């Protein structure tokens, strides 16, 4: 009886008794979901262009953030360091295309996937060799990003809003809008969708596969840098950050591997869902449940929509 009460009554009673805290939980879930969505976006971009899950996206987030901090620590002014970090991601995109992808045109997707695993280990090694393994602070203030917090009085309690979290939400929204425009309204965007459907068919109509891949990997690099800055500002820049990127997997399952809106909605559902469950129901299971709860949400969605919320439904007739 107690168990039923703890599952079905008590959490809702807590929500009603402390609405300010509920709002805080929802806000934290929203911010975390925004960041999950940013990570997932990087995966979606590359999946759209090559049909491959880019295992290296997590380390790309770390590598981009480390490049930025590394340039700054070497004495480069913050904004110049930001441009140079973008340059690093650009060089990496061209390098990946020239040295890895170009040799794998029309290969099975699993081969491309394996190549991204190799790339991931390469970037981990290169990152540790160049920047060292120490934890580094993100140059939040130097980049002009807001710090500090605002306390809002709500329903007899308080909600604490971190300014950097607000900035993260705004930047994520701008990035999503820009990417959505890029992929739906530009020639490259349309070419990219063609490449995603069939490499050889795209080549036959004159689309430069090499150019598309370099552009997409660079776009994923930009998203990785934005994610690295935002997540680095919330915690720190360390190689442990790449593990967080795995949280994008349930987001992708939920939202669909090919959908930008799916990544956003999926990120928000996972972010808010895991916070709510951890805070109000987690104690019943000993706490620390958010590590796996995201996958439970994704699995539940999979039962009803195997292609994800916004994924393409592929019907193959035999």
């Amino acid at each position: 009886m107690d168990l039923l009460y703890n599952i079905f009554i008590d959490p809702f009673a807590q929500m009603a008794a402390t609405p300010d805290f509920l709002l805080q939980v929802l806000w934290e879930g929203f911010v975390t979901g925004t960041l999950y969505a940013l990570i997932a976006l990087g995966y979606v971009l590359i999946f759209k262009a090559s049909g491959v899950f880019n295992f290296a996206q997590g380390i790309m987030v770390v590598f981009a953030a480390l490049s930025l901090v590394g340039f700054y620590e070497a004495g480069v002014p913050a904004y110049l360091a930001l441009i140079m970090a973008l340059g690093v991601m650009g060089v990496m995109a061209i390098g990946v295309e020239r040295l890895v992808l170009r040799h794998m045109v029309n290969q099975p997707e699993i081969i491309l996937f394996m190549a991204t695993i190799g790339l991931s280990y390469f970037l981990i090694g290169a990152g540790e060799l160049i920047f060292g393994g120490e934890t580094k602070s993100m140059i939040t203030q130097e980049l002009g990003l807001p710090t500090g917090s605002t306390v809002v009085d709500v329903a007899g309690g308080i909600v604490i809003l971190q300014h950097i979290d607000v900035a993260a939400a705004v930047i994520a929204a701008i990035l999503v809008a820009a990417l959505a425009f890029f992929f739906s309204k530009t020639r490259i965007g349309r070419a990219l969708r063609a490449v995603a459907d069939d490499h050889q068919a795209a080549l036959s109509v004159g689309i430069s596969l090499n150019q598309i891949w370099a552009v997409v990997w660079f776009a994923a690099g930009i998203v990785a840098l934005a994610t690295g800055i935002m997540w680095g500002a919330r915690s720190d820049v360390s190689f442990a950050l790449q593990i967080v990127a795995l949280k994008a997997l349930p987001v992708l399952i939920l939202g669909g591997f090919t959908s930008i809106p799916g990544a956003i909605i999926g990120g928000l559902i996972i972010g808010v869902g895991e916070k709510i469950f951890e805070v109000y129901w987690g104690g019943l299971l000993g706490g620390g449940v958010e590590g796996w709860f995201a996958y439970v949400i994704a699995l539940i969605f999979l039962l009803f929509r195997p292609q994800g919320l916004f994924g393409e439904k592929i019907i193959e007739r035999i």
Partner: protein
Amino acid sequence: MFKKIATGAVIAATALTMQTASVSAQETLFVPSLSYRTGPFAGNGIPIANGFADYFTMINERDGGIGGLKVVVEECETGYNAQKGVECYEATKGKGALVYNPYSTGITLQLIPKTPVDKIPVLSMGYGLSAAAIGEKFPWVFNYPATYWDQMSSIIKYIDGQEGGIKGKKVGFIYLDVGYGKEPIPLLDQLAEEMGFEVVKFPVGVKEMQNQSSHWLNVRKEKPDWMIMWGFGAMNATAIKEAAKIRYPLDHFIGNWWAGAHADLEPVGEAGKGYISANMAKAGTDMPAVQDILKYVVDAGKSQVSDRSEVGKVLYNRGMLNAVVVAEAIRIAQEMTGKTAITGEDMRIGLENMDLSDERLKELGLEGFTVPIKATCENHGSGGPIFMHQWNGSDFERISDLIPPMTDRVRAMLEEAADKYIADKPGWQTQDCG
């Protein structure tokens, strides 16, 4: 003919290699260093490995080694991964390893069953299996200057002193959800029952180390009077930032001695002001032996530190303390066995007869560096006191006297845990200390 020549060459080369290894083992003191300069915990592993290596380099440069034999430190990268740690152990044990310092509770737990078989002791200095402090049951394992259980009891004692009684208070325990973080829970639960305080636990998975907002929302919900952290690596800085974010009073947030180093607080900076942690050794360079490290190693370009200012920081000095203890055990072993080229078995004798007194520390040029460490056949954990230091926004300041553990409570629990550990291991090697 070619086949015969090739076979002969291979046999000759193998014999030569074996001979070289054997000579090398006899003419040096081989100390493997299971380090982690890569991976999620590298930020903590790097200064530890540097301090450990630099002290031995200084001993070799200044004194020509120990007892006339050079100390060879060979690093093996574990990435703080238990499986890789075991691989490192297997790869180096045949080279005449004297002692293993795993720097990971997970790796320590894997090595404990191997130590009596290979006759190479493990020194898990201030970490690992707490029950291994019972020397009769764990002849090959040493975990002084204090076990996790000793340390937790000292932290509770500190809170008790600050509150004028901990009874009726709520204590939050946030920990890395691996063997290391879970290790002190039995003692914490027991003390909570005996002393009448409430414990709320917040496990943080490795994947969530930099994503702790849920945990700190729960802290805000539970409103504990004090928070204790058993964290490591990137978890620490994130936890302190999240605590500051929810406006938890940082002077009521205490980390253990793996959650209170410059590597943890420097990325946090001013936001971490007031945070407290336990420690076992003094930070700083104002000791003759550390000055010798700067002179013989760092300034001579023989160190791996990227900056001279790294010397003297909390984890660098922790690694150095580990090396001091190993060096002292080697010296004691040489003295007691009459041999200069000692073995793992001899080293065990050295570790068991450890007596790093204040006078001895002064002789070593390390006056006041750490609490005295004295081991016996029965006690491999020393049960030493700890002290608290507090982050002032840019550095640590010591804020407490030495706080001894609750030995009367802890020892009985350790003995019980040791009995339980070996109960299902028939043939487990114990020793009689009678």
